[in-house]
């Protein structure tokens, strides 16, 4: 390769590969491939199926250990470990992407990118996902939609958005428009053009030559695992590139492709499993901490009272016993939350509905709060509020949850407002506080050993349960963006009495 005219030592390229060779059994998938990608450059890898494009993407992204050769990111060797590569800012979007069909758009976009606040406040996950999708100009509508309802092109864009959630240094796209219709491919291409304009370093593989000419700064042509040509999209005809790409026996192409696909799908399954396991692990760790806190107090107070060689005065004994009682109820509430949560997750959550007067539900919730906190809550509900067909106790649980959250996570003296507004066929309820917004502690990643933790954060189930209960009523619970404090919006359907009687 020719060196540009410049003095001194040039900065190392953003991404460089030297002599990459990868064999699968007797098949040589990559044969001594070297390339260099400058920061902000978009490089296309063109080649037929089985030419080694996906293998090259995998080797560049640390997803596969080459038999020989090295990959360097900013002049520093990259270990063949997808997690380490991701940590250094490398993101891969796979051809057969791994979206979780049972999750909604937002959860898929943030999958693996969750922050602690997302686990505590699922509404924030939706807000962050919506912001990211909006920034990238991805038109998929409501982020609460399940991904199985999306088209192929929309799924590709969700996968790209997921890769962009942590502002990667290098984005590797493996055939991002394969198997898409013309209109959908154009949408994905527009997204890549936009990322390129924002200065993201991109390596994209594919075989749509006209598209590559539009997208890339350079086109590298791969055949039989070797780099056979480099083309400048500015002075090459798409037909010439197509000619460079083609020219091999069909049988060989098929054999190579099948071997590569088998290797890739096994790898993807492992990755998806690992991700799911990590999330589960974080949840269990938080839960065990929450269970241990009341348990420590109960054990400690009980064993204090049981000591034969210590005599406690009446006041102390009474205090110890009342703490044991209080912490036992806290433990009981945690267990109830867990049962509710698993019922909601399993879809076997039952409501016993009747006509409910919402102001009464809210009053009941306020009366459950600690007496010193209750005066901080102000309720504003118009007298003409329609009755809703709902489970009184469960709705009360939602308000207790939201109110307790608002009071606990804010400094003392914070006021909480609950307002209700009748709409056309819904009632909208807002629970807002004028506190300092979310506690910055909650915005951190899950703490590891010896690091800080927020107090009273619970197992993070409260909001999930509240959301599940509202959803079981056919309503929604969302975070409402406000300049100060936190505001949660509940929308409940108001059904006509006649319809209800039919049901």
């Amino acid at each position, binding site marked *: 390769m020719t060196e540009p005219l410049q003095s001194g030592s040039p900065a190392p390229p953003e991404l460089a590969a030297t002599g990459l060779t990868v064999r699968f059994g007797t098949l040589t998938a990559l044969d001594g491939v070297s390339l260099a990608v400058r920061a902000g450059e978009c490089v296309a890898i063109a080649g037929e199926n089985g030419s080694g494009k996906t293998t090259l993407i995998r080797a560049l992204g640390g997803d596969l250990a080459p038999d020989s050769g090295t990959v360097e990111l900013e002049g520093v060797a990259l270990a063949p470990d997808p997690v380490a590569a991701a940590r250094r800012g490398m993101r891969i979007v796979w051809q057969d992407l791994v979206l979780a069909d049972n999750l909604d758009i937002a959860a898929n976009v943030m999958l693996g990118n969750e922050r602690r606040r997302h686990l505590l406040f699922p509404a924030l996950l939706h807000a962050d996902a919506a912001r990211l999708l909006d920034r990238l100009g991805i038109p998929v509508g409501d982020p609460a939609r399940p991904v199985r309802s999306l088209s192929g092109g929309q799924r590709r864009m969700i996968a790209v958005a997921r890769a962009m959630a942590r502002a990667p240094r290098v984005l590797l796209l493996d055939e991002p428009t394969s198997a898409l219709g013309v209109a959908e491919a154009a949408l994905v291409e527009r997204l890549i053009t936009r990322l390129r304009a924002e200065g993201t370093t991109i390596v994209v593989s594919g075989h749509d030559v006209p598209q590559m000419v539009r997208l890339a700064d350079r086109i590298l042509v791969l055949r039989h695992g070797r780099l056979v040509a480099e083309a400048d999209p500015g002075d090459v005809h798409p037909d010439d590139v197509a000619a460079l790409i083609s020219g091999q026996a069909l049988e060989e192409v098929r054999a190579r492709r099948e071997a590569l696909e088998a290797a890739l799908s096994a790898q993807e399954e492992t990755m998806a499993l690992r991700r799911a396991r990590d999330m589960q692990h974080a949840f269990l760790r938080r839960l065990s901490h929450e269970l*241990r806190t009341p348990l420590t107090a109960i054990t*400690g107070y009980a*064993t204090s009272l049981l000591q034969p060689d210590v005599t406690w005065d009446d006041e102390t004994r009474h205090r110890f016993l009342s703490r044991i009682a209080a912490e036992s109820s806290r433990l009981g509430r945690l267990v109830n939350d867990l049962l509710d949560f698993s019922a909601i997750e399993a879809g076997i959550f039952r409501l016993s509905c009747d006509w409910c007067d919402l102001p009464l539900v809210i009053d009941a919730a306020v009366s459950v709060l600690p007496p010193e906190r209750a005066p901080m809550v102000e309720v504003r509900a118009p007298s003409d509020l329609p009755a809703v067909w709902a489970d009184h106790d469960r709705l009360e649980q939602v308000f207790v949850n939201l109110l307790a959250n608002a009071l606990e996570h804010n400094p003392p003296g914070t006021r909480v407002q609950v307002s209700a507004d009748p709409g056309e066929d819904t009632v909208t309820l807002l629970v807002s506080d004028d506190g300092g917004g979310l506690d910055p502690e909650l915005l951190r990643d899950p703490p590891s050993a010896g*690091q800080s933790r927020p*107090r009273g954060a619970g197992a993070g189930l409260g909001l999930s349960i509240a959301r599940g209960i509202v959803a079981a009523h056919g309503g929604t619970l969302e975070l409402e963006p406000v300049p100060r404090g936190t505001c949660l919006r509940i929308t409940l359907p108001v059904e006509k009495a006649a319809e209800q009687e039919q049901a």
Partner: protein
Amino acid sequence: MTTQVLIVEDDPNIVDLIRSNLAVRGFDTLVSVDGARVLSLLETERPDMVLLDLMLPGTDGFELCRQIRERSEVAIIVVSARGGERDKVTALNMGADDYMTKPFGIEELMARILATLRRTRPSGQADAEEEAPVITIGEVEIDLGAQRVRRAGSEVHLTPTEFLLLRELALHRGKLLSRTHLLRRVWGHGYETETEYVRVYIRRLRAKLESPDGPPLIVTQPRAGYRIADLTRTNRIR
């Protein structure tokens, strides 16, 4: 003089629990609900012991433990909700003298507090000193009376627990001592299963007293225990 314990803990129940139990036994207590004031309290109040919760808001507990140890010889017991072996070894390496996992029974905590205080506040252990006030092993000199250790003529600073462990090994020179024996003699009853404690402290003694190219001072007998080398005899044979 009463013994003063600094409780660093943000859970009001645990604070009340520990404080009540210490007070009823005649200890003085101080409380810090976060890590920020700990180092200044250490200087102004000079407590005899710190009970340190590892997970305080806004504080890295391990780092705080290291900073306390850097400034002071005070006894440190870490009280943590995390029970992993790795956290325990990390805490010991950061200078903690003992590690308790939540939830704990109060009797065990009190026993650990007393044992740790006994170990870290050495008071005239007069039994063996008269027989062998100074033991010399290779280039290491252990003055049992003055509780001082010199290596190749220059003084080496050992913490009280390190000294007790070295003393126990040196008094039985050449004899194999099991981990359980060392735990019982140095740490006290109730510590028999804490084998990592011995491992961590043996490693520290080696780092302070052995030279990388010289003969080993402490010999590990796999699965059995440790013995201190009888270096004078070895030298004579050479």
